[in-house]
């Protein structure tokens, strides 16, 4: 009996302690009670929590980590300096909560649920992979009123009006823009009339090549071969030989650094591809790819955001930003998406700054208002270009896509082709 | 009248070796037949042919009206032939009773649905399996019954031998094939074995064929003895007839051994 009495006593002590610590909350402002999703309440001296939901484990990890680094740098630069400590918004430090989308639907679900179940999370930067977002993370988070901004989803379906989830935005290019721009470039600039494509089974690559092929054929070109490879493989000579059998003018393979590098190398060894022009996209627009491809990359074309259109930010990007990146994460960026995620995070931060209500040190962030502020982003200067969010969440709705030609083992600052494309157009 | 088991001109080659060479062999109900012969004479191969592990290259085999050629081991068991192995081969990680219960497999038929739904038929059948298994174990008096829930691997060597026979009995055979049942037994245990084999015939009515190197055992139980050498039958008859056959003595028994008898 004595044991139980002690237990009861202990519980009582806890309860009192808890009550003392809990304190009485101040009344919520009007905006919060009006908002169907309520407010995120950040108490005095507590951090503002922003989630990331990127692929940081498994074979695609380098992609997600690259994006994550972009977010970390954005948080770092909030105080106007890359000093390794995160800045503040309205007197509250920013805290990042790292999630993992696993680059898969189930990973996206678990990760999104984790974010959704934490009421302190203001918004989430993610996902890396379309499969983690489409019908999964975008839906789960939208149901909770949490904004999800993806730095690297490019699948058209995500912002298709019929499927778009209200709290979903992205700073990555819709495949529709990039795939079409590459097709224009190939047909008009390069004068190509035959083309072949390779994808790697990822929705990203498959989507891009599909848009490219469609546009190319619409313009009057012929697609001679559409092939696919398996991620992780190293020998693509069989695929290339098959493609080489019809010697297309252009080979478009919008895949990622490792396999992309190998294809660039091995294409040189295939007789039928001796005169074929190789084109990749932003999955390979990185030093990682240049490393992987070595000298074989020279002369190749890569599409991506036209950074030179914004010379002001360009210097910042090439200067402070990349220096800080190398300093903090020990190496060159592995992909192009850190820039998109940096922009995404800044978009979120400035929206928070815009809508947050300060009541005696406690911050109230109404969720719907935050979302609206995000969708209202217009003309914001990011490092990937001007951000103009449209009604279905495409913030690169009017982007300038550039095609760069690799020269002397480097990607030059100015593209050989630039196209101002618009989703509405 | 036809024999219970009848082999005519059965042969089997392995690569260049003629393991069994045109052997005629038969066993009748209630008969105990011994098979002797030097190591490598083809005795176990013969067992393996009869039980469907090997398919004979040539020859005819019938059992109880069935053609044996081409049957798989499980089908052979179903028509009534059970065997033991030269080296005891039990299901080491199953209990004693489970080993015996598995023996009832061909005599029962409940399947997946019965197992899941526990239909009345399945429950009754399960009870019958238990009963039959215990019956087979009980044949060995108090040797196996008290150890019914032990793992087979925990049994002493002689009990493993017994359990192997009990498992064979649980298949409700007409013919029992025993492969060197006395191997590894000491003289006292061999005496017990002789008695046991006699009882198997008398109480259960099995026909029994056994391979054995131990002459006292062969002498003690066999109605008829068949001697093999290099895959061929070299002698057949009563123990005394075979043991005094010159070829058998030279190839197999040796001088001293035949003197001892």
């Amino acid at each position, binding site marked *: 009996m004595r044991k139980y009495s002690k237990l009861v006593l202990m519980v009582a002590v806890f309860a009192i302690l808890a009550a003392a610590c809990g304190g009485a909350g101040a009344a919520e402002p009007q905006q919060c009670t009006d908002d169907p999703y309520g407010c995120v309440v950040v108490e005095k001296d507590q951090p503002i929590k922003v989630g990331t939901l990127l692929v940081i484990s498994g074979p695609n990890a380098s992609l997600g980590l690259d994006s994550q680094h972009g977010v970390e740098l954005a948080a770092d630069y909030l105080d106007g300096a890359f000093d390794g400590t995160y800045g503040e918004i309205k007197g509250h430090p920013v805290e990042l909560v790292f999630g993992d989308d696993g680059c898969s639907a189930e990973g996206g679900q678990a990760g999104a649920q984790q974010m959704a179940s934490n009421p302190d999370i203001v918004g989430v930067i993610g996902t890396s992979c379309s499969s983690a977002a489409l019908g999964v993370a975008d839906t789960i988070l939208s149901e909770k009123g949490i904004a999800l901004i993806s730095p690297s989803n490019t699948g058209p379906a995500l912002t298709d009006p019929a499927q778009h989830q209200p709290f979903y935005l992205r700073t990555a290019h819709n495949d529709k823009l990039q795939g079409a721009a590459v097709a224009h470039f190939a047909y008009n600039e390069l004068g190509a009339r035959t083309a072949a494509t390779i994808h790697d*089974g990822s929705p990203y690559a498959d989507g891009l090549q599909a848009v490219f092929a469609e546009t190319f054929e619409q313009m009057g070109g012929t697609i001679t071969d*559409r092939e696919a490879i398996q991620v992780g493989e190293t*020998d693509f000579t069989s695929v290339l030989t098959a493609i080489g*059998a019809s010697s297309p003018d252009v080979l478009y393979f919008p895949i990622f650094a490792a396999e992309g*590098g190998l294809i660039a190398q091995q294409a040189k060894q295939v*007789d039928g591809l001796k005169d074929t022009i190789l084109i990749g996209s932003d999955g390979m627009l990185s030093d990682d790819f240049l490393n992987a491809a070595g000298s074989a990359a020279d002369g190749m074309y890569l599409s991506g955001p036209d950074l030179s259109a914004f010379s002001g930010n360009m210097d910042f990007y090439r200067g402070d930003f990349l220096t800080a990146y190398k300093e903090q994460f020990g190496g060159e960026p592995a992909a192009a998406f850190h820039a998109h995620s940096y922009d995404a995070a800044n978009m979120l931060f400035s929206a928070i700054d815009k809508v947050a209500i300060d009541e005696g040190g406690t911050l109230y962030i109404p969720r719907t208002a935050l979302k609206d502020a995000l969708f209202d982003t217009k003309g914001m200067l990011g490092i990937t270009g001007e951000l103009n969010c449209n009604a279905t969440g495409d913030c690169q709705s009017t982007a300038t896509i550039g095609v760069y030609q690799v020269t002397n083992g480097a990607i030059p600052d100015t593209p050989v082709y630039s196209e101002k494309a618009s989703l509405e157009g | 009248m036809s024999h219970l088991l009848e082999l005519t001109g059965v042969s089997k080659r392995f690569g260049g070796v003629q393991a069994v060479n045109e052997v005629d062999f038969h066993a009748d109900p209630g008969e105990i037949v011994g098979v002797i012969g030097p190591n490598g004479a083809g005795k176990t191969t013969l067992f393996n042919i009869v039980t469907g592990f090997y398919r004979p290259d040539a020859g005819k085999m019938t059992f109880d009206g069935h053609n044996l050629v*081409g049957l798989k081991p499980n089908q052979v068991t179903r028509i009534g032939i059970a065997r033991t192995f030269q080296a005891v081969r039990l299901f080491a990680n199953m209990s004693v009773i489970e080993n015996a219960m598995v023996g009832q497999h061909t005599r029962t038929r409940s399947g997946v649905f019965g197992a899941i739904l526990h239909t009345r038929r399945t429950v009754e059948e399960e009870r019958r399996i238990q009963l039959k298994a215990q019956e087979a174990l009980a044949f060995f008096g108090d040797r196996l019954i008290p150890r019914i829930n032990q793992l087979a691997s925990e049994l002493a060597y002689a009990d493993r031998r017994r359990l192997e026979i009990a498992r064979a009995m649980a298949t409700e055979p007409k013919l029992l094939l025993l492969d060197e049942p006395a191997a590894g037994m000491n003289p006292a245990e061999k005496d017990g074995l002789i008695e046991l084999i006699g009882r198997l015939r008398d109480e259960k009515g099995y026909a029994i064929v056994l391979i054995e190197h131990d002459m006292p055992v062969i002498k003690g139980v066999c109605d008829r003895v068949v001697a093999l050498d290099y895959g061929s039958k070299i002698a057949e008859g009563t123990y005394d007839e075979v043991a005094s056959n010159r070829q058998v003595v030279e190839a197999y028994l040796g001088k001293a051994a035949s003197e001892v008898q």
Partner: protein
Amino acid sequence: MTAKTETRTRRLPFERIPVRRIILVALSLAIIYGVVAGSAATLQTGTFSGADWRTLVVNGLARGSVYALIAIGYTLVYGVLFMINFAHGEVFMSGTYTSFFVATALAESGYLNEHPLISIGILFVVSMVVSTVVAIILERLAYRPLRGAPRLVPLITAIGASLFLQYTFRGLYGANVRAYPEIAAIQGTWEIFGFDFLKKQVIVIVAAMIFWLILYLVVAKTKTGRAMRAVGEDREVAALMGIDVDRTIVATFAIGGALAGAAGILFVFVFNQVIFIMGFLPGLKAFTAAVLGGIGSISGAALGGLVLGVLEAIGPNLFLTGANVPSPNQLQPVVAFGILVLVLIFLPGGFLGSDEEERA
């Protein structure tokens, strides 16, 4: 296996339709039909020239040679310990990846292209040493405590070790793919029998054959090799012969590791790339090759590797192009494993494996 030889005097009541045999025959026929008809159709279209086929075969032999070398390591360990060392691919990766840093240093100093032979020698040594050390550590920490445990247990440990090593190296060296420096001396082509062959592919194929031969001799003729075979057959009796069982097992892992390290250098000659997951797929392929050739047999592993490599290289193009299957090369695993199944249906022990069944 053989067809019916005799009619039955009396049909047994429980003889049912042989479902399995029907499926088996149907499946084999389907695969064979697919292969033959597909190949015929492809050849008819004339999509590929003779030179194309020749290139594909040589490519296949080159990648098959790498598989073969890794597969030999698998088979060695299997022959002695009867365990699938799932982490063998990571042993391969560890040496190769580490040698990358040496190669980069050599390349930056210019030494690599001034003294290519010495450099290549250094790279081989570095890679082989690191892989050997990793293999030995693996044996000591992950496998030795489990000697005598049921076979699935070390399999799981091996899988665990495989993940552990992958992510350890990721933690150490980073997640990015890195380009292995190219060695100018082995770029370009040689003319053999009037045809041009890539130098590096020829080197890989020849080197693999040399390594295979050395290993074959080691196992067949030397005392260590004999000890390895003895431990593989009966560990206890091997000890009874005065063989140091532990040391023999370590030696087996070491040899397998060294070969994996060597295979890694050959791999980067051809593919010029290192990343922390680079071991997984080749490891899996090598495992497949070892089984295809008959696991436990060294020559079988070598043969299995080559066959698998060639099959992967030409299979999809040959069998599927004519059948108008889109993206045939994507279906490479289907082709490779389909053929594997076919082979194992007819040769359940692989090409050179012993069929240890007591049933004939």
